[in-house]
């Protein structure tokens, strides 16, 4: 297998070179936690950052910022274009997500199903996505809460990546997966092509996979009747502890719900979209005051049904979850998608198969 060898001594320099062409994003330490964010000039993710398993917030904002301007307008009646929406000017510089984990990169592949349909294309999301080069960092040492291998990807998963880096001690072995990846490697000045032993790579991959101790069963989800699952009797118990915050949905790489808002200052205005969460009661509130998901149980059920059933039914792309485990780790009240997925997947199974 052909790989490009990136000596760790050349890491920071290469990124600096790439930064003249790309806006770089990567894991950096902010006080206590690692965050995946825009890298300030000259700031490269160091070895510790590259080895960090999961950044606190997911890299979703690289493509899909928490708040993003859709249009600008003026309400100045003297302006012939008053009240007419204009797209803001964009910075055309491409982006690169450095050290993104394979699960997080795969999340964009899933989310694309939502933002690109035969009828409509979300130009903002798609432009950002197309413009981004994903330089992945394979997970040699996954967390105990990671369940990527049963959620459609894995620690060395390549789908959605342009380059996959594996940590080989004093250097990274870079497997270039796409033309986009190749262009990035050139911009970084990394071109030391080597023959990398397939067995070694596969060995790492297997070893990493074996370290994954969490899993979600998904085999029955597609066949279970949607309404019956919706009406299952476990939802009240699952939802009781939920406090209706947006932690799970905002940390999740595969959640995409958004709100659209207008804001004026004087006669200038913007229309922007910002992340929203199906956990919030007003998410579904009608103008009439009627709320189809008024109760907490309904909202918690919606989140899990959406990820683990509706998405499965709609796109036939597996579950809308990549197994990063952020929601498991950070839910303030410890609602665990692994447990819920298990409940859902085993719904209606005959008693004799289950061992309490």
């Amino acid at each position, binding site marked *: 297998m052909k790989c490009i060898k990136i000596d760790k001594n050349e890491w920071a320099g290469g990124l600096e070179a790439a930064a003249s062409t790309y806006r770089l994003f990567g894991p950096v330490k902010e006080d*206590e936690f690692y965050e995946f964010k825009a890298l300030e000039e000259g700031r490269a993710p160091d070895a510790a950052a590259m080895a960090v398993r999961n950044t606190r917030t997911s890299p979703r904002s690289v493509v899909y910022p928490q708040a993003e301007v859709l249009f600008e307008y003026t309400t100045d009646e003297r302006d012939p274009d008053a009240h007419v929406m204009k797209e803001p000017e964009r910075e055309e510089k491409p982006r690169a997500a450095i050290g993104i984990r394979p699960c997080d990169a795969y999340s964009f592949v899933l989310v694309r199903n939502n933002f690109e349909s035969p009828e409509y294309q979300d130009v903002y999301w798609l432009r950002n996505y197309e413009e981004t080069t994903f330089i992945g960092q394979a997970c040699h040492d996954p967390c105990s809460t990671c369940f990527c291998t049963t959620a459609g990807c894995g620690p060395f998963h390549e789908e959605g990546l342009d380059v996959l880096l594996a940590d080989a001690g004093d250097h990274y072995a870079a497997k270039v997966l796409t033309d986009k990846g190749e262009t990035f490697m050139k911009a970084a000045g990394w071109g030391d092509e080597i023959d990398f032993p397939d067995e070694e790579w596969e060995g790492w991959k297997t070893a990493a996979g074996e370290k994954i101790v969490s899993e979600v069963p998904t085999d029955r989800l597609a066949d279970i009747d949607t309404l019956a699952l919706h009406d299952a009797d476990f939802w009240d118990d699952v939802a*009781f502890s939920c406090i209706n915050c947006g932690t799970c949905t*905002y940390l999740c790489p595969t959640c995409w719900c958004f709100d659209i*808002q207008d804001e004026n200052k004087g006669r200038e205005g913007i229309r922007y979209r910002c992340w929203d969460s199906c956990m919030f009661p007003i998410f579904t509130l009608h103008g009439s005051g009627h709320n189809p998901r008024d109760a907490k149980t309904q909202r918690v059920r919606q989140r899990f049904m959406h990820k683990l059933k509706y998405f499965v039914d709609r796109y036939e792309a597996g579950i809308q979850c990549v197994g990063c485990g952020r929601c498991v780790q950070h839910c*303030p*009240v410890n609602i*665990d998608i692994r447990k819920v997925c298990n409940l859902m997947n085993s719904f209606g199974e005959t008693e004799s198969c289950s061992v309490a």
Partner: protein
Amino acid sequence: MIAYTDKIQEIARRLLKDCKVETVIGFRKGSVPMMNEPCFITSADAADGLVWDGNCGINLANYLTNRKEKIAVFAKGCDSRNIANHIIENKIDREQLYIVGVPCQGMIEKRRIRQMAPGEITEATEDGDEIRVKGRDFEEVYNRDEALQKNCAVCVHRNPVIHDEMVADEVEEQTDVDRFADVREIEAMSPEERRVFFRKLLEPCIRCYACRNACPLCYCPTCFVDESQPQWVGKSQNPTDIWTFHFLRAYHCAGRCTDCGACERACPVGINMRLLTKKLNKDAFDQWGWEAGLNLEERPPLDTYRPNDPEEFIK
């Protein structure tokens, strides 16, 4: 911490069996280390699932708002004070509640232990004053005192203030703690320094509202940040909007906050927003000697007037 689990299960079983209550609200063992999950049970058989240890930091008063049935609830010192708040603010009736007091020696801050540990913690157990944590290739023992939630470390109301039954004898209250040292530090800053300090403090906020929703005080049917007519606060990540949310929320808790730490504990990005509410707690204490939720008789300072109220701020 003394493990109260057996006693808690026994009480829950008895209350449900005797039909004293319809629901018991407590904790069950969590699925990740140093986490327990609030849960409810309605049958005596389910009592076996209840647990109690240093990971029951969620404030259970939050789960009582506007409930209609007869409930037993396990309450630490802070929980009991928030239950008192709830009763005073008519969010639940005293008669509906069977309060089982749990004397508390402080809850563990998992974030702190995670930082101290050399790797990912996969198992944590409490044993007396010690917390033993294990990871894939390490095992460490920490002293409980160094891993307490910051509010617990300076708590002077560890014993429940109202209860129908106690799980164990009262614990000794801390007397030699300096509760407001951090607030004084901020008070000593110049306005400009404070502005910079708060800007930095609130910068990581992702507006998930976990702090608000974990707080038993935040039960408004529509929070001012969600209100659209009028729209008080923008919904983007504009820092002004983020400050507005945090500052105003803190003000809404003035004279009501028990410093239970639920907000900080819930925050996924580690913001110490308790610094905001604590200043108001300190003011309420300095001005009126007031601490929220200590009894059911006294009205909170912000809904009473006394001719001898201190009024230094009025010139």
